[in-house]
């Protein structure tokens, strides 16, 4: 008998094993849901799958009586807009500052303790300050994402800059490059795919801040919606919404990964 560490499943088994836990969860859910509904047809905690689909299609395909919008579409668009703004501004900040402090020692001395300090602040703790300073509008939600994500991303980019082999930097100096040319021709092109990776890593955190900010003060958005319907114990809306948010997160990650592989075939190879 081979050692356990040397036994690998075949392709089919691999796929089946991957799906198995999901199927199990589904079966357990359906079983418990049926049992509860048999006891009390009005049970809200574990709604049947048909009920979830029904409520979700109402959200997705019927115009709201109050505002005349498609609720799901409206929520998704406004959440994604906030997320995109927060993440893009953070990425731009991280690219500029991360490279600057990675390349210029004087800037490292000046800025890196500050960035380090900001990355340690529990961002949710300053949400009240943001609401006071920026009001309850869009700005404070975007700023919350930026404050939560930009310092981590900057530190990440700084680390990646430091990982570029010093031989390469010395080599381009012997080819006559000045500091600015090293930044534009070597650092930025080499760091860009790493920035995309940094975005992928920090997106999870960005979602947390987005949902939190929407839960506290918003009039539309995915996070707003699930916290709103929580009052009516509407699990038939919350559960599909969570799955939808997870799917969006997966989709964004997948697109960014493809983007990196297509555009930077050299990335990650020596």
């Amino acid at each position, binding site marked *: 008998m081979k050692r356990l560490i040397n036994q690998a499943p075949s392709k089919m088994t691999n796929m089946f094993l991957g799906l198995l836990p999901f199927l199990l969860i589904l079966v357990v859910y359906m079983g418990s849901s049926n049992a509860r509904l048999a006891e009390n047809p009005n049970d809200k905690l574990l709604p049947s799958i048909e009920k979830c689909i029904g409520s979700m299609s109402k959200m997705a395909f019927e115009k709201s009586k109050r505002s005349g919008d498609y609720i799901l579409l409206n929520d998704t668009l406004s959440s994604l807009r906030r997320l995109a703004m927060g993440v893009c501004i953070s990425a731009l900040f991280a690219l500029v500052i991360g490279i600057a402090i990675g390349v210029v020692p004087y800037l490292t001395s000046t800025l890196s303790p500050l960035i380090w300090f900001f990355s340690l602040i529990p961002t949710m703790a300053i949400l009240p300050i943001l609401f006071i300073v920026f009001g309850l509008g869009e700005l404070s939600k975007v700023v919350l994402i930026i404050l939560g994500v930009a310092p981590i991303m900057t530190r990440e980019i700084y680390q990646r800059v430091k990982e570029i082999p010093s031989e390469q930097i*010395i*080599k*381009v100096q012997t080819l006559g490059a000045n500091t600015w040319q090293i930044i534009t021709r070597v650092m930025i092109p080499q760091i860009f795919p790493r920035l995309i990776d940094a975005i992928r890593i920090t997106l999870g955190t960005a979602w947390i801040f987005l949902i939190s900010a929407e839960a506290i003060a918003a009039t539309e958005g995915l996070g707003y919606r699930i916290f709103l319907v929580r009052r009516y114990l509407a699990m038939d809306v919350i559960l599909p919404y969570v799955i939808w948010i997870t799917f969006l997160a997966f989709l964004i990650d997948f697109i960014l990964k493809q983007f990196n592989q297509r555009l930077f075939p050299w990335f990650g190879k020596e």
Partner: protein
Amino acid sequence: MNLVEAHNIWKSYGDTIVLEHVNFSMKDGEFCTLVGPSGCGKTTFLRMLLGIEVPSKGKLLFEGKDYPQEPSDERGIVFQRYSTLSHLNVIDNVIIGMEFEQSQLFGKLFGKAKKRVYEKAEEILCAVGLQDAKYQYPHELSGGMKQRLSIAQSLIKQPKLLLLDEPFGALDPGISIDMHELLLDIHAKLNFGVVMVTHDISEAFKLGTRVLVFDKVKTDKEYPNRFGSTIVNDIDSSKGRKNEK
């Protein structure tokens, strides 16, 4: 005038003395190979010639003037690894030296100017045997081809001194022999100064016009860092080199 002159150079890190009493001078066209046991400071000496280390004591001169304190395009370098830019293909790796020179702001050339440097780069790629790999990326090249590319990058700048830090140390023996041919050929044509660190003695004698042996003269068993290395032997190997050719 001597290309490089070193007068009584010392290098120490804290209590550790790496180099002591190093006296050395070389002229244009000389091919100096540095050999010696590992940890004897030959790479430290090369790094001084590159301009990224400063001697603790003594005087180091480049063309009779104070030694530059940072790398410049007068002195090319080929490291054992990581000398090429992974995000550029072969020919763009070669022209980048010209782009830095001709486009201060962007470091990038377009149109006619780019065409001109491409022509020059193609000549150099032919000289190093990479003419068929123009559009490949470094990760698609073999170890020997990467080193050819790194040499080509430096050649386009026509350096006065080419520094080689164990450039063939990671290559297969057969490939190294091809690289020796290439290096001897280029050196014979262009006649610039070369300083090469190697751990392969036969390579040192085959390529060098001078072989410099680094080692410690005195040792102290209790404090092995008490004494540094120096050049213990300076062998003229130009005759053997010509006979072999």
